């Protein structure tokens, strides 16, 4: 293991000094937080100064003052207009956002016309509600009743939905666990890709033979996986911390969702899933000549671990469906599927254990297999291996010792 640790430390130090990595680790999330704080402030700033003018042609003569009173505290300003054609011109010229036409006849049918410029412009709800209230008030007054007494008596009743079963997940819990799942799945795929590039770079820089004369292929493989894994965990931690800080602004008390059990389960899937994906990518890197020669087959294989992301909405909707549970036991899909399942539902402990066991076994086998491919593939310069060649290496006793 000594060799693996040396390789891991080397890769870690080499990468952490890379400016691009530093930027993506620390600056990128900070930028996101800055934006999430700045944008609402900016929107408020810009929106506050703006008012919208609506032309009102009031044939009744008495609705407009009441309506004006109702809309006094909003962004809408009413402008009395007598001439419909002049009002239409102003509307088309963009000086007015709408023209409201209040007529006795219309009100008798419970309606008022609202002109907009284009079909897709809709009348503002605020204005519609205010008009309803203004009409009700004038009618009540005309009937000799006090609106302040009557209106509360006729107020709408709305239904407040209250689920009685014990809540499985609160919004905060869901946000945290889904965020964590996304973060870990994406990190796995991204770092796996980095491992593949590093393996290819090792090949093209031709240092591999010196390395392999010092340590075994398996030590080299594990060293790379370990080095970038630690780096990845560090990145995820920075991002998660920043994400939580940002989220606390909107969902206070979000921290409580991160129980030790939740974190431990997520990390277990992350570590084992990362080991699988990165070994797989490392294996692909070992058979490729260079970055440009990623063949069709390879790019299809590389997509496999991302499949759960494509069908994420189904997994979230039916986390306990038979096929989702089956998928959770297929190693390349296990980590991502289970991270999302555990995020949205309570998965039985035995299923967590069985999927972890399957994944751990698959990791063990894949690392052995990748080390075998490494032994031959890494020494092959100038050409990519064909799937048939790789199959032959695996059956060959080459590398049995490593």
């Amino acid at each position, binding site marked *: 293991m000594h060799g693996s640790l040396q390789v891991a430390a080397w890769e870690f130090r080499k990468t952490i000094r890379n400016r691009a990595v530093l930027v993506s680790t620390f600056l990128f999330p900070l930028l996101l937080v800055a934006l999430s704080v700045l944008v609402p402030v900016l929107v408020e700033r810009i929106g506050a100064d703006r008012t919208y003018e609506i032309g009102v042609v009031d044939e009744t003569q008495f609705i407009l003052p009441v309506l004006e009173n109702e809309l006094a505290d909003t962004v809408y300003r009413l402008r009395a207009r007598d001439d419909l054609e002049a009002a239409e011109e102003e509307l088309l010229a963009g000086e007015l956002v709408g023209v409201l036409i209040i007529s006795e006849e219309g009100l008798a049918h419970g309606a008022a016309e609202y002109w907009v410029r284009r079909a897709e412009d809709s009348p503002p709800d605020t204005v519609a509600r205010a008009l309803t209230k203004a009409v009700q008030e004038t009618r009540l007054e005309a009937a000799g009743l006090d609106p302040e007494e009557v209106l509360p008596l006729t107020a709408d009743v709305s239904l407040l939905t209250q689920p009685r079963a014990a809540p499985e997940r609160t919004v905060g819990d869901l946000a945290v666990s889904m965020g964590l799942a996304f973060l870990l799945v994406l990190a796995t795929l991204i770092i796996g890709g980095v491992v593949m590039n590093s393996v290819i770079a090792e090949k093209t820089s031709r240092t591999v033979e010196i390395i*392999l004369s010092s340590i075994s292929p398996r030590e080299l493989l594990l060293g790379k996986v370990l080095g970038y894994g630690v780096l990845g965990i560090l990145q995820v931690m920075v991002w998660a911390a920043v994400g939580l800080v940002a989220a606390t602004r909107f969902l206070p008390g979000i921290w409580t969702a991160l129980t030790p059990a939740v974190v431990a389960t997520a990390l277990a899937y992350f570590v084992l899933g990362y080991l699988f994906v990165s070994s797989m990518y490392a294996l692909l890197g070992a058979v490729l000549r260079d970055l440009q020669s990623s063949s069709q087959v390879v790019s299809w294989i590389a997509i496999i671990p991302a499949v759960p992301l494509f069908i994420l909405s189904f997994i979230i909707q039916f986390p306990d469906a038979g096929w989702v549970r089956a998928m959770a036991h297929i190693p390349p899909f296990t980590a991502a599927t289970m991270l999302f399942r555990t995020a949205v539902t309570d998965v039985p402990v035995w299923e967590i254990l069985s999927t972890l066991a399957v994944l751990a076994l698959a990791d063990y086998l894949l690392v052995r297999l990748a080390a075998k491919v490494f032994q031959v593939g890494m020494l092959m310069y100038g050409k990519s291996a064909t799937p048939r060649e790789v199959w032959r290496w695996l059956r060959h006793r*080459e590398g049995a010792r490593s």
Partner: protein
Amino acid sequence: MEVLQVDSIEKRFDGVVAVNGVSFSACRGEILGLLGPNGAGKTTAIRIIMGIMRPDRGVVRYRLNGEWGELDKRRVGYLPEERGLYPDARVLDLLVYFARLKGVPHAEARRRALAELEDFDLAPWAHRRVEQLSKGMQQKVQFITALLHRPDLVVLDEPFGGLDPVNQEVFQGLIRRLRDENVAVLLSAHQMNLMEELCERIFLIHRGERVLYGTLSEIKDSTDEHIVRFRFSGDAELLAGIAGLDDLRTDGDQAWGRLPATVDPAPFLRSLPQGLGLQEVSVRRPPLHDIFVSTVKGGDDAR
């Protein structure tokens, strides 16, 4: 003292024989030359010795810690033919890393790397990136990586490749220094003149098999023939009448040819015609280059 025994190793790739029943040994304080045309199986044999590949048959034994046993990768140094360094890494970091992989403690690795860089006139480059170094400098850095951990056995695969004559001489000196430090050196190269100057013993491999193996003089003796060279001022026509000389060639006032083993040089010299006006005559064992070419060609013709 022997530190390496290669015993009847055999290796096939997809049914094609790369190395077939090859055996040789290497001793401390000796430079063993591994010769052979391209694709003869040299690099495969070296990779087997370095533990990068496993032979299909045969064994390699090592005496790296005083006892015969398995390969201890920390006790061998290697300069592979396919070589490179991380272009974006700094020279000192790289040397320390490779030494760490060989089990040298960090502080010690750093101390030795700085000392070697000083020795190789590379001290000002210690903190530069590898890509900023010239090719010759990079090759020196690679050479340092092969010996920084003080190995008992060093394998150098084509160390002169791409070097100018000045640097070739520098590397010759370095290889001799290793030998003088009682390291066993296994040297594979194409530069016959350099091999002849450096190696005590030669192993010639062709088509995966041993063709010649022994000390340089043994190999020269085994050829049983001499190369005769003349410089003359007389009648060139007379050359045609010289009996017993094969492959006679002339160029101006010079001529040379092969004297088969069956011909004794002394009577031959006496039999040279008077009118030739001889100025110089030499009778020598053929150079390694000729032995190599004729052995390899002869082997191919016999097939």
